[in-house]
C-alpha cells in the first residue's frame, strides 16, 4: 500500500529547507522507497544504502521540489536514478548471490543450472535495459509507473523490455541454451 501524500504545509516547509519536515517525510516514505529500490537492486543491504543515498539527494534538491506536485512520484524518480547509478557501478559478476532465491512456484522443467545461467546473462545486460525488464517482467509493475520513475514514455519502456528480452535470448543461445 503506497504511503499517503503528506500535508501541503509539510511539503511547503520541506521545500524551504526545514529539517523537521524532511524527517517527517523520510519517516513516512522510507519503507516505500526501500521496497521500490529493492525491486531494482535485489539485495536488501544495498537497497538500504541506496535508500539513504536517495534521501540524501532529496534533501540536497529540496529547493527544486514543487509542493503542489506529488512527493511520492518525485522521490521515486530520484530513487530510480540512485538505483540505476548503483547498477552501473557494480560488475555484473558480483551481483549474483551464492544461493539464488527460489521462485514461489518452481518450474520442474527448469534446472538450477539454467536458472543460474539466465540470472548471470541478465546481469550482463546494460543497466538501462535491465532496470526496465526487472520492473516490468520480474516485478510486474505497470508500464506507466515504470515510465514515470524512469522519466521516459511507456512506449520507450516497452521498447527497452523488448530489447532486454532479445539480448537475453541471444546471450543464452551463444552459450548453447535454446530457451
Amino acid at each position: 500500500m503506497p504511503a499517503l501524500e503528506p500535508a501541503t504545509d509539510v511539503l511547503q516547509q520541506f521545500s524551504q529547507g526545514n529539517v523537521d519536515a524532511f524527517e517527517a517525510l523520510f519517516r513516512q516514505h522510507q519503507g516505500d522507497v526501500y521496497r521500490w529500490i529493492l525491486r531494482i537492486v535485489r539485495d536488501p543491504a544495498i537497497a538500504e544504502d541506496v535508500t539513504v543515498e536517495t534521501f540524501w539527494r532529496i534533501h540536497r534538491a529540496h529547493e527544486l521540489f514543487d509542493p503542489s506536485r506529488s512527493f511520492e512520484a518525485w522521490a521515486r524518480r530520484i530513487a530510480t536514478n540512485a538505483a540505476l547509478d548503483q547498477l552501473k557501478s557494480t560488475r555484473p559478476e558480483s551481483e549474483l548471490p551464492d544461493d539464488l532465491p527460489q521462485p514461489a512456484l518452481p518450474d520442474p522443467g527448469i534446472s538450477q543450472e539454467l536458472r543460474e545461467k539466465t540470472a548471470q546473462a541478465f546481469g550482463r545486460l546494460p543497466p538501462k535495459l535491465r532496470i526496465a525488464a526487472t520492473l516490468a517482467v520480474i516485478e510486474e509493475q505497470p508500464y506507466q509507473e515504470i515510465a514515470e520513475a524512469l522519466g521516459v514514455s511507456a512506449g520507450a519502456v516497452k521498447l527497452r523490455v523488448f530489447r532486454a528480452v532479445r539480448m537475453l535470448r541471444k546471450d543464452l543461445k551463444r552459450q548453447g541454451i535454446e530457451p
Partner: protein
Amino acid sequence: MTTHDRERIEHLLKQALPATNTQPRATLQRDLWPALRQRLEQGSIAVPWFDWALLAALVLWVALFPRAIPVLLYHL
C-alpha cells in the same frame, strides 16, 4: 523473435529471479534515519583523487576523440 519465444524467456527470467515481494526482507527491517542523519551531518562527501583523475582522463579522451561522444552517451 516470436511471441512464444518472448513468453518463454520471460518465464525463464521469472524462475531465475523471482519477484522480491516473495523474498525475506522484502520490507524495511530497521529505521534508516540514524544513518541518514549521520550522512547529513557529514555534509558533502569528499571526492577521491582517482575520481578526479578519471574525470580528467575522460575530458582528455573526449577532446582527442570527439567522434566518440555518441558512443559515450549511449553507455551512460
